[in-house]
């Protein structure tokens, strides 16, 4: 027979199921690719290296761009390194809401060694674009799906095009949203010694939640402090402040950035205000191996009149993978053009089974669940998902954008 104590105890234990799904997702996103104590480089170190290697070439630009706080976080991480470990529950709501945002737009004002810097930045993991403009007129636009960088030089009114290649792990292509990016940022900061305080406060007279991260022993700056301001209604980061000082307390860098989440962003460097009369200098460099494969795939896509339905497309992809038909793989999953073919060559074919196509909350995205045949026979369910998109496809065809 149930006693009142029994009923109360049930209620007591309900609290431990709170946010379970959210926490699970957060944990799964933080797990490294494989178990058995496998060590991997910090995710943010990869992103930081990626951005450092490709976009921020000069020291001046690096620091100027650092005034845009998100990037500054990355630079901080790049100095620190360290393994990613853990997933903060307190940050989970913000990450969830930010995941729905397609673009992140920051306008930041700051000083670096006494010099005023104004920057504007756009970032989208959906569109695979990083772009920014500086107050001195320099503009950069990087489309990492094509690994192509446009740089505008205001004095000479010229645009140079290059294909910088990041040689590290291709983690940047695996990041699916601004939310997952921010999630990694705060988790990483807490785990590598950043002292994080969450508290209530005000920003421009409005009540906000503040996440303040302080490092007292930064390798480059004596003290490094970052504040994220979160709007309690939207649960989105709306502003950030950064301050770096040397050992004498002199301010080396100070900036404040306001953040918004537009639905669209720049589609090319001209959208950022580069005059159409700007001269493109130098011939475009030789295409990278990736670019060659990608262009070939695009040419085939453009010439095809019809496309398989999503379910068949996924099945066709796995057939192509089993027969090592890399061109076909790149057509059906353009991102796979970047994969290491030597590794693919050694891969043993695996037999998969597929489930029915499922829609998602995002327009233009669908999912085909799948699993290895042995897993399905044992557990009676699918353990993996192929995500398909038809974004930007003028033929209305779906293509694979992610395999799990």
């Amino acid at each position, binding site marked *: 027979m149930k006693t009142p*104590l029994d009923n*109360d*105890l*049930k*209620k*007591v*234990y309900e*609290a*431990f*199921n*709170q*946010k*379970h799904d959210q*926490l*699970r997702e*957060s*944990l*799964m996103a*933080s*797990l*490294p*690719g*494989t*178990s*058995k*104590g*496998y060590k991997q480089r910090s995710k943010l170190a990869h992103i930081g290296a990626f951005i450092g290697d490709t976009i921020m070439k000069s020291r001046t630009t690096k620091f100027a761009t650092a005034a845009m706080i998100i990037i500054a976080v990355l630079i901080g991480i790049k100095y620190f390194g360290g393994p990613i*470990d*853990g*997933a*903060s*529950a*307190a*940050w989970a709501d913000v990450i969830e809401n930010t995941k729905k945002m397609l673009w992140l737009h920051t306008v930041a004002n700051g000083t670096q060694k006494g010099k005023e810097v104004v920057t504007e930045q756009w970032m989208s993991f959906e569109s695979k674009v990083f772009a920014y403009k500086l107050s001195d007129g320099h503009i950069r636009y990087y489309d990492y799906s094509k690994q192509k960088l446009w740089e505008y030089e205001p004095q000479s009114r010229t645009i140079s095009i290059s294909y910088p290649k990041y040689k590290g792990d291709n983690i940047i292509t695996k990041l699916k949203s601004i939310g997952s990016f921010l999630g990694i940022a705060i988790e990483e900061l*807490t785990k590598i*010694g950043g*002292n*994080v*305080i*969450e*508290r*209530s406060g005000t920003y421009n007279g409005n009540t906000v939640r503040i*996440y303040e991260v302080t490092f007292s022993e930064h390798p480059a700056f004596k003290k490094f402090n970052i504040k994220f301001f979160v709007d309690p209604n939207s649960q989105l980061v709306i502003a950030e402040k950064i301050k770096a000082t040397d050992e004498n307390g002199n301010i080396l860098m100070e900036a404040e950035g306001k953040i918004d989440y537009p639905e669209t962003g720049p589609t090319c460097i001209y959208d950022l205000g580069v005059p159409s009369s700007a001269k493109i200098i130098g011939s475009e460099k030789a295409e990278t191996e990736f670019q060659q494969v990608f262009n070939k795939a695009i040419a085939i896509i453009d010439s095809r009149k019809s496309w398989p339905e999503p379910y068949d497309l996924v099945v066709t992809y796995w057939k192509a993978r089993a027969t090592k038909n890399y061109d076909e793989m790149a057509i059906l999953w353009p991102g796979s053009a970047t994969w290491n073919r030597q590794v693919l060559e050694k891969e043993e074919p695996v037999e998969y089974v597929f489930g029915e196509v499922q829609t998602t909350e995002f327009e233009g995205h669908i999912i085909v669940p799948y699993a*290895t045949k042995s*897993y399905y026979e*044992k*557990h*009676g*369910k699918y*353990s*993996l998902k192929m995500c398909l998109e038809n974004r930007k496809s003028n033929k209305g065809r779906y293509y694979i954008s992610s395999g*799990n």
Partner: protein
Amino acid sequence: LTQPSDRELIQAVLAGEKTAFAELYDRYGPLVRAICYDTTRNLSDAQDLAQDVFMRAYEKLGSLRDPDRFGKWVVVITRFRCREWQRNRLRHRNKNDRPYNIQVFEPDTPDNSRIERLRKMITTLPEKERLALHTFYLQGKSADNTRRIMGLSRSGFYRLLGRARKRLERLLIQQENIR
């Protein structure tokens, strides 16, 4: 369809099926959070600590000799991690420094509800009795589950659970009398 056993899930994780770990998390996540709460007495910190426990469990999964004992193993990791957390907290307190973890400065919640008092009261019980309550209310009531986690016979487990309940009842009465 029958649920895959812990052993099957662990084998799948070690074979590269990362998603199988999510199922293990579903099974033991609330229990781990409850054990963490016994130390932190704060739900948010308990959630963070539990995440850390599962990260460690995932990294060390290959070292688990008997995959059928995952439940017991993860409880051991949790206890170890909780002790670390406590030590860390004390160290920082001694140095008059802040703890490394996120601190949540919320206005004090009025500690007047029966449920809240009961939750705090559980943290004062002997460890075995606490674990008996946690497993009973969070792991389902099958004897197999509890045996796996607590290493007790069915009757031994129910004796322990009975003791925990009686102690709680006594504490509640004492507190009512004080109020």
